[in-house]
């Protein structure tokens, strides 16, 4: 994996400020009668890289989708970058334009070229002039190493390439926080590393990241906190070394043995 030479040795060395980026307090969410998220308390500091893992259906996706209000929470509070998420549309749109999201299934816009995918939100939401938006887009496409695909349509790209475009598309909005929902789990094995490399690079630049993933190698390398969720609760959280070598709860041990066992 592409780590630059002066990369920090351990994740904890990477700088984390004590400024709060996201503050979740006593958050609960129900789907009808089904209690998906229970009393979630989570504080994320600027520059932190958090990996969220847990069994299927434990509410990981729901948690990070609540952070940019793709899902509505019913109880408790979520404060993103100083903005409290309520039902106020203006607040929600502001938070969304500051928080980038990368989906499992890429969700690129198939009727637009790669370049148009990347310039659309800056032009319409940030009101950036077209020329400038295109320059920014090319800068980030170079960063994810596919500038030459700019004029193609998403349908003409491989899965790994599409996911890197999706990352570039989010970055074009210059977000202060990035959310990833299993960004590599729809990819063929040989494409996973190209996407992870991009994410590692992003982490090294100090981006605040919340990442749902089962790539434990990635977690060890870049995360400074790993969160384990089960049945809608945060069961355990710790630094990666501690988390993997010395899990506290039985559910975590079981989960780790299943996921690392083979």
């Amino acid at each position, binding site marked *: 994996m592409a780590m630059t030479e002066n990369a920090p040795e351990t994740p904890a060395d990477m700088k984390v400020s004590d400024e709060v980026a996201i503050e979740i307090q006593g958050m609960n969410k129900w789907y009808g009668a089904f209690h998906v998220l229970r009393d979630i308390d989570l504080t994320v500091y600027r520059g932190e890289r958090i990996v969220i893992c847990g069994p299927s259906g434990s509410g990981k996706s729901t948690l990070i989708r609540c952070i940019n209000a*793709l899902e509505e929470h019913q109880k408790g509070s979520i404060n993103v970058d100083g903005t409290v998420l309520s039902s106020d549309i203006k607040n929600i749109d502001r938070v*969304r334009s500051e928080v980038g999201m990368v989906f499992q*299934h890429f969700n690129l816009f198939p009727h637009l070229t790669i370049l148009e995918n990347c310039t659309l*939100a800056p032009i319409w939401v940030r009101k950036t002039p077209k020329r400038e938006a295109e320059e920014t887009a090319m800068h980030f496409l170079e960063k994810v190493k596919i500038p030459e695909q700019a004029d193609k*349509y998403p349908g003409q790209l491989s899965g790994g390439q599409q996911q890197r475009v999706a990352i570039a598309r*989010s970055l074009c*909005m210059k977000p202060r926080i990035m959310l990833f929902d299993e960004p590599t789990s729809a990819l063929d094995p040989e494409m996973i590393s190209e996407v992870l490399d991009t994410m590692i690079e992003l982490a090294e630049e100090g981006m605040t990241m919340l990442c749902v993933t089962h790539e434990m190698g990635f977690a060890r390398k870049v995360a400074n906190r790993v969160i384990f969720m089960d049945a809608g609760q945060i069961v355990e959280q710790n630094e990666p070394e501690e988390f993997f070598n010395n899990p506290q709860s039985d559910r975590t041990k079981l989960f780790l043995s299943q996921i690392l066992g083979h």
Partner: protein
Amino acid sequence: MAEPRTAAFVRHDQLPPSPPPAAETGVIKWLRENLFSSVLNSVLTLAALYCIYALLSGFLPWFFNGVWDAESVRDCNEQMGENRGGCFAAIEATWRQMVFGIYPNDIYWRPVTAFVLLWVAFAPVLFQAVPRKLLYFTLLYPFLAYWLVWGGTVLIPVLALLGLVVGYVVYSRLVDQSFAMGFLGGVLAAAIFWWLSGFITSNAGDVLALREVATRNIGGFMLNMILGVVCVSLSLPLGIVLALGRQSSMPIIKWICVIFIEFVRGVPLITLLFVANVVLAYFLPPGTNFDLILRVIIMITMFAGAYIAEVIRGGLAALPRGQYEAADSLGLDYAQSMRLIILPQALKISIPGIVNVAVGLFKDTTLVSVISMFDLVGIIRGPILASTEWNGVYWEVFGFAACLFFIICYGISQYSQWLERQLATDRR
């Protein structure tokens, strides 16, 4: 040891390959592979050939024995004598009526100009390659066409246009505060402007005036074209609004749209047209002169709009939820994500269905003949077939009408297929 060989004959050039046996060449091979490849296929081929023969043996003599130059049906029959044929002289004599209705002869140039300009106005909408600047002309076109066809002072369309501009300016001033306020303000401003301009037009009715033509004189295929073009152009935006309204999370808007769609779809068009003709008059304040064509346009637009809404709803439902989520997660607001992300894709999926509705609607404009408007069918069934000269020439004139409709409908269908190919970007 090699003996010196003397050959009696040495060939210097290669022989050209001999042609394959007749059974393997062009026509015969093609026939065998495509028409007679099995017993069943052979039987079907022969049956089809017989049908074609039967049709042609009826049609061709009728067509070629036809009379193109005659005064009346009786004249036709005398000229034909024993050979039965078509009386095409009827088309020759009545095509002006069929196309223009009873529009005054000496000003045919006005609808013709409007028709030619229609294509100029459509060009930028239909083809991406046409310069975008032409869209300004498209915006002006409805007012220009109204003036050309109906005549009267140029002030009417100009003031109508200015009213829209005033409404839009007020809307764009207020919309920042709230959409509802902008919308109401815009409508109000336009209404006041039109009300005031009523005084101007009633006092200055002859500024740059073209001769006025009454609505009842507008008929023939021209009327079908007017109804078809206006109603398709209006029902598409109406359908989009209804489809989005039906998906809305605001219950009142949602239910208004659902009830409207279900009601209009549940009623035959002909009923709506009768309503337009008779019943609407009761609801309007006495003395208002609400043109019949306008009433019919409203009804057909509502009818087609409801159908188009359902087609577009199918397109919206076919989009993966991820598209909505990606648009939301980038911070696009509702209007932006609909306009830039959702509708372009949903409309693309809906093209075949929309075209289906548009073609059906265009043909349904002939139903106005039932409320005694003289559209193409109305004018054939009424004045033409009832006249003493052309009484009984059904096939010829209805055939002509069918050809006119076929040309337009086939054109629409070909265009939509071309458009679908142009828009196919998401194919892997």
